[in-house]
């Protein structure tokens, strides 16, 4: 499980997160939605150690990791993917996944490549593959070692509707089998409503509400602040 308690993050005078608390129990897939600038990616960054929080506390599996760096949080069992593809563009796919496997006790490189359909392109230089494959490599880097917690920042961004749905279904199946706790930021509501157990809505750096997909879909305040007619 992953928890953030009273997290605040400022960019100059602007508070991107204001006293945000979130708790995702073990094995749950939690969606994080909200309009642009709501603080979704900032929350993922604070939880993963990419951005320092001005105040508050982060814990993974009950262990306080607030003072740990990004690499230490990774070793503690946290994997993350990025909104913009963040891979080793000049290395082959197999090479970078193998390198990612050096830091974990269970380097399940072949398993991850098979799960994400990367075996056929394993020896290709990642930067020379299609965008869809690069997104999968980004995800694969986060999945090496079967992390206990996975933070996904728009994993389906830039993919076609069919690719998004296929990826999200596969992801749901995979994390349930591996019993991974997931916090996923996604703008594609079809993806969010189809794979998430619960959803947290952020608005202006604060938690607006939290609930099951059905509760969120019909919440008047969420519809007003974010969903509009999209739901």
């Amino acid at each position, binding site marked *: 499980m992953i928890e953030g308690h009273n997290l605040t993050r400022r960019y100059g005078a602007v508070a991107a997160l204001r006293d945000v608390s979130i708790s995702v129990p073990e094995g749950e897939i939690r969606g994080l939605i909200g309009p642009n600038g709501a603080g979704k990616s900032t929350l993922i960054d604070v939880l993963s150690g990419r951005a320092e929080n001005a105040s508050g506390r982060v814990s993974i599996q009950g262990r306080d990791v607030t003072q740990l760096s990004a*690499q230490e949080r*990774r070793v503690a069992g946290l994997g993350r993917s990025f909104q913009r593809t963040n*891979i080793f563009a000049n290395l082959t796919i*197999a090479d970078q996944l193998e390198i990612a496997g050096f*830091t*974990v006790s269970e380097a399940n490189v072949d*398993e991850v490549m*098979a799960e994400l359909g990367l075996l056929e392109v394993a020896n290709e230089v990642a930067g020379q593959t299609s965008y869809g494959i690069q997104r999968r490599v980004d995800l694969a880097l986060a999945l090496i070692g079967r992390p206990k917690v996975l933070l996904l920042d728009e994993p389906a961004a830039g993919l076609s509707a069919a690719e998004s749905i296929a990826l999200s279904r596969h992801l749901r199946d995979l994390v349930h089998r591996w019993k991974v706790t997931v916090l996923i930021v996604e703008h594609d509501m079809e993806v969010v409503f189809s794979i998430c157990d619960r959803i947290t809505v952020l608005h202006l750096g604060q938690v607006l509400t939290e609930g099951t997909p059905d509760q969120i879909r019909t919440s008047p305040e969420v519809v007003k602040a974010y969903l509009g007619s999209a739901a």
Partner: protein
Amino acid sequence: MTDLSVGDLGTGKRERQALARRRETLSQGAILIIAIVAVIPVAYLVRSNLVLSLMTQAVIAGVLATSVGFLIRQSGAVTFGNAAFYGTAAYCVALPLKAGLSLPLGIALALVIPPALAYLLGLVIVRIPGIAFSMLTLAIGQALSELALKARWLTGGEDGFSFALPKTVVGLDASFLQRPTSMLIFSWSVLVLVLFGLSLFSRSRYGRVVAAIRENEERARFIGYQTVSRRAATFALSAFVASIGGVLATLYNSFVSPETMHWSLSGMALIMAIIGGTQLLWGAVVGAAFVFFAKDWAGDIGEHWQAVIGVILIVVTVGLPGGISGAMMQIASRGSRLFKGRGAP
């Protein structure tokens, strides 16, 4: 499809890759022996002491240039300060001898102090990316050079000082270090071993991680790597190679001065690395040999040899992004394809 069967398939591939790596290491070992042995007839066939001396100096410069080229290749960092480590190593050899201490002690200090210093400095400066890192290395190099210049009581200041080698070194007549023929063979052997060692490092787990950090430092952190210490260690390894060059130069010349630490020597090593090419480990050696002989040739026909080197640098930068070594590999690759094409039925 079970995970196990897929895993077995992938493991088989990796075993083949590991086998290929072992074969590559073995073939490199064979090349290493051939490369060391090959210089012996050259050293004895060349009759001119002047040419032999020039070749020896080019080889020693090749070691320094390799330290710079290696850092660019492995870490993506451009240093203007490796002469500081080269020069520090030179003083580490010379000062104990001046004080009547033993040569092995001096060599040991020369191979430990500069890399240790580089590692400690690296822990701070590798955090600063790009040109700012280069400027910091320049500043550190100049600071050490100034220090050597001002501490006249110890270093002899601008004039430097010469020293005598002991009669024997580890049971061998020490004069072999100052005869062009034997020193060419010795320096060349050291250079080949340095290249082999760096090649092993690049292909090691640690080296591959450092290359990944060069590619994308942020992602490397998010797959669990502490990046600063690894980059600092790579900087220290580069300084270690520069120190080897400094030791060889000092033993050969029996003289040391602050010029061995000056930024212009670092700049020349960088020019050698760029002209030779940094994509291949041995590129800087080609660059060093080319620059040394171009300098000698240009010096014969006029006073402005720097201008000639400058023009060569521009031509290589614009026309040969992979440097001379990159061009050599391209030509070899085309020749090989042509040969295979003709040989095909």
